[in-house]
């Protein structure tokens, strides 16, 4: 039986493409969610579509809410030693390493996992392949055998795994379900027979358990859910990693609800079509990655100039150029905020977790329509592909709100770009009687007719209208966490890496460092007042981010005219809590490892 202690463990499953590594991780995280745990999971896979590259699925399972993956895993399962061996060092002391100790072919000296498990880690070798073959007459159920072993070793309820296996293979012949269940059960018996020597504790799900209401979804999945709840009407896209799954999902979900879905020939067509649809009043969106956004930059300028609402999801990956297609990075911030010709300010939202993806995607259309401008939803591969348990809110409603119709005035021409107090002009849709108007990429007057003499005034209008976006109802454009009042170190974070920022802040506080963290969700326009207050409270400001240049640090520092300390990481991997913590210690003056940690 599971004990009452809290749980916070991370399981890493590593294998080769084709080993079922990601599928195994998928079953593990879904079973854990079914047990009521909070789950954060992230898969890494090779850039090659086919081949034998390395896949690794990391799943953090916790009783309490966690905000990021851990730097060290508690358990590593190797489905392929040549790939998993470099990750053995990621397993913490007295954690477990599970591997096959009955290989069918000889390996070179040092080619077996047992050569790489240090004395503080606990080895669990067993005949994985043989067990799969005995259970199913094939070796391909090794990924399921290890899940059974895991369930047996840590006394996890097998019925949840069986349920997920059944659901996962529901569209396959019954024999597939039966074989996988047999493979799971064989591993389960083997795991139960082993004397557990590691100190990995799997306790109850806890008071903060997500329970049965929790939904497991990725950042991209959350974007789709937000879009659908916002009643998206038109989607135009061109596939690109890591945004493709948004398009794939919408292609399935939109048509039955009457939505328009089109895969275009390239990104330029996609954004052009989306802007065209947005102009007609349709809730329109596209999704891409950095290289695609670069292609879209010119058309985005048209959206700004013509004041057309459109939503663009940008899931960043390592760049420039083709870069690191399957690795994460936060290096398209400059492109998202500034990319394009001219002064083309737009709204950029950067959610920090999966639930944030859902909320921002759901609200993006309303924001775009309110401010009559493109809204970029800036996420990255780590967030796009990261699984989290989310408890959907019953309160959220992203359905289109009724807007005040523009009434035609027989005595005056309709001014689509009229100067108003809040700089937002009355918007009519094409075809409305008496409200005929012109839009153009050329600078124009209030009527929309080309006019370059009015450029300063129109530039002012297009910029000033966005100022109130930081107060958009229901949208947390920034949020402070941690100690109130003056602190030694303030950590400023954005996007996917804010989870690591938050974990760092809690660890720093536990070490006695006065520390606060702020997430900034709206990158353009920046929530200047909130930032000023945060800066005023912090003796030192640290900005960790996943790019080489420190793009967010430059953005904030430039906007406030204040120095910040940068912590830039461009490895293709997520931020590391210990790296941030080390910097927080240094900045706080407490740069020595505390005794408790050193012992």
């Amino acid at each position, binding site marked *: 039986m599971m004990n009452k202690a809290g749980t916070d463990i991370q399981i890493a499953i590593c294998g080769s493409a084709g080993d079922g590594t990601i599928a195994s991780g998928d079953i593990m995280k879904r079973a854990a969610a079914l047990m009521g745990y909070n789950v954060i999971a992230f898969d890494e896979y090779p850039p090659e579509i086919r081949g034998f590259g390395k896949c690794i699925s990391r799943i953090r399972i916790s009783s309490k809410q966690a905000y990021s993956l851990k730097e060290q895993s508690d358990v590593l399962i190797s489905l392929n030693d040549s790939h998993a061996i470099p990750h053995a060092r990621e397993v913490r002391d007295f954690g477990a390493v599970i591997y096959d100790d009955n290989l069918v072919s000889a390996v070179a000296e040092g080619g077996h996992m047992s050569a790489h498990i240090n004395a*503080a880690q606990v080895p669990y070798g067993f005949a994985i392949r043989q067990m799969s073959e005995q259970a199913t007459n094939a070796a391909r159920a090794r990924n399921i055998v290890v899940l059974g072993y895991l369930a047996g070793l840590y006394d996890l309820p097998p019925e949840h795994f069986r349920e997920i296996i059944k659901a996962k293979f529901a569209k396959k012949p019954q024999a597939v379900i039966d074989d996988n269940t047999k493979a799971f059960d064989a591993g389960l018996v083997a795991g139960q027979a082993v004397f557990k020597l590691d100190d990995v504790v799997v306790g109850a799900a806890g008071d903060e358990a997500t329970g049965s209401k929790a939904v497991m979804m990725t950042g991209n999945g959350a974007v789709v859910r937000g879009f659908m709840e916002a009643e998206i009407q038109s989607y135009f896209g061109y596939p690109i990693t890591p945004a493709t799954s948004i398009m794939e999902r919408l292609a399935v979900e939109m048509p039955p609800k009457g939505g328009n879905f089109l895969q275009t020939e390239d990104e330029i067509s996609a954004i052009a079509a989306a802007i065209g649809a947005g102009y007609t009043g349709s809730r329109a969106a596209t999704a891409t990655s950095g290289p695609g956004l670069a292609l879209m930059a010119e058309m985005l300028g048209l959206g700004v100039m013509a004041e057309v609402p459109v939503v663009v999801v940008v899931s960043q990956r390592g760049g420039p150029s083709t870069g690191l297609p399957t690795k994460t990075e936060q290096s398209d911030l400059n492109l998202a905020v500034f990319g394009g010709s001219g002064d083309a300010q737009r709204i950029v939202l950067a959610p920090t977790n999966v639930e944030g993806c859902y909320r921002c995607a759901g609200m993006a259309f309303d924001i775009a329509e309110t401010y009559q401008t493109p809204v970029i939803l800036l996420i990255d591969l780590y967030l796009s592909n990261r699984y989290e348990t989310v408890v959907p809110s019953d309160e959220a409603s992203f359905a289109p709100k009724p807007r005040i119709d523009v009434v035609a005035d027989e005595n005056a021409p309709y001014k689509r770009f009229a100067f108003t107090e809040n700089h937002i002009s009355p918007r009519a849709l094409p075809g409305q009687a008496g409200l005929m108007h012109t839009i153009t990429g050329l600078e124009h007057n209030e009527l929309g007719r080309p006019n370059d003499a009015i450029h300063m005034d129109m530039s002012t209008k297009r910029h000033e209208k966005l100022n109130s976006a930081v107060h958009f109802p229901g949208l947390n454009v920034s949020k402070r966490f941690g100690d109130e009042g003056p602190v030694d170190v303030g950590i400023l974070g954005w996007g996917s890496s804010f989870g690591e920022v938050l974990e760092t802040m809690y660890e720093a506080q536990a070490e006695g460092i006065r520390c606060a963290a702020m997430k900034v969700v709206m990158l353009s326009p920046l929530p200047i007042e909130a930032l000023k207050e945060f800066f005023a409270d912090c003796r030192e400001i640290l900005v960790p981010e996943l790019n080489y240049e420190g793009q967010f640090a430059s953005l904030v520092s430039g906007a406030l005219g204040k120095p910040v300390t940068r912590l830039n990481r461009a490895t293709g991997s997520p931020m590391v809590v210990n790296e941030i913590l080390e910097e927080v210690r240094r900045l706080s003056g407490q740069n020595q490892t505390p005794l408790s940690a050193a012992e």
Partner: protein
Amino acid sequence: MSAPLHHVIIGSGSAGFGAATTLRQNDDDCRITMITMDSLPFYNRYDLPQVFHGQHDWRELLDVPPAYYDDMRIALRRRSRVVDVDGTNQLVTLAHQESVAYDRLLVCAGGRGYLPENLTGFAGLMHGFGSFEAAMRLYRDLPKGGTAIIIGGDMIGIDLAMTLLDTGYKVSLIATPQTFWPHEVSDEERTQLFAAMTARGITVHKDHRPVGVSRKDAGKSRCCVTLDDGTEVAGDVVLPFCGLTSSVEFMLKAEVDIERGLLVTPELQTSNKTIWAAGDVCQIWRDQEKAYHFYHGWKNVRVMGELAARNMTGTHEVFDTDVEDRIAVDANGQISSTFWTH
């Protein structure tokens, strides 16, 4: 400049661990790989009865912290079974199909529990005590105040029996020729020792040999050992403690001389000049008696490991021992062995 030597040690008990440390002290550049079937880093097997005193965290049993192996640059290969040693090509083959090349090999594989032939078919009904996991399983399966039936009663078993008595359990001992192994006791001593055991509270069955073991799901006692006169000895667990037999099967192709154990010179070198042996796995030549002898007990084993390591790195020391072969009963009826006292 020559490449650093690769010293491979098979076994991670007292001999193997002592050897690894000594090798590092004598050769800072060499590679050291220690291969063991055990799941844990080195701990003293003589401490295993401590699980009945509440020692359930294996980390507390370790002689050195795990970081020691990194510090000493000792590669520890656990849960790795050696299936073959190729003495000509100097290769150790592991069960998972990996071959490890060595320059010098030290075999400290020890021995496994011996079981009289007529009882081998009942092995599945008995508990082991050769590892931390086995000790913990025994602790888990033996109910509080329950009875352990010890077949044989070598000194490891007697040490455990004393601990069980001290911690509120009952012990029945069924004597065999291996009782008091590795000590060779006279009939008179044997009688005295059995009397001391009885006085301590052990139920001793010394006149009849065990012929069978059975297990019952129903009833008060779960296990039963049948003696050759039909007597049934009831208890909760059955533990065979009939001495050790050397683990040498994997050495059959190593081109070394083998009898019951690996035969070694007083310098602990086998007939293959690249292979040494130490501990319970080897029989050492005694020139005075013109015969090979086993030397038991943790002190001898540790000294052998360290001496073999020194000889592997160039010295030519000869094994000798001052450990007496003596078993004694103190005023409290406690039985002690010079081999087991530590």
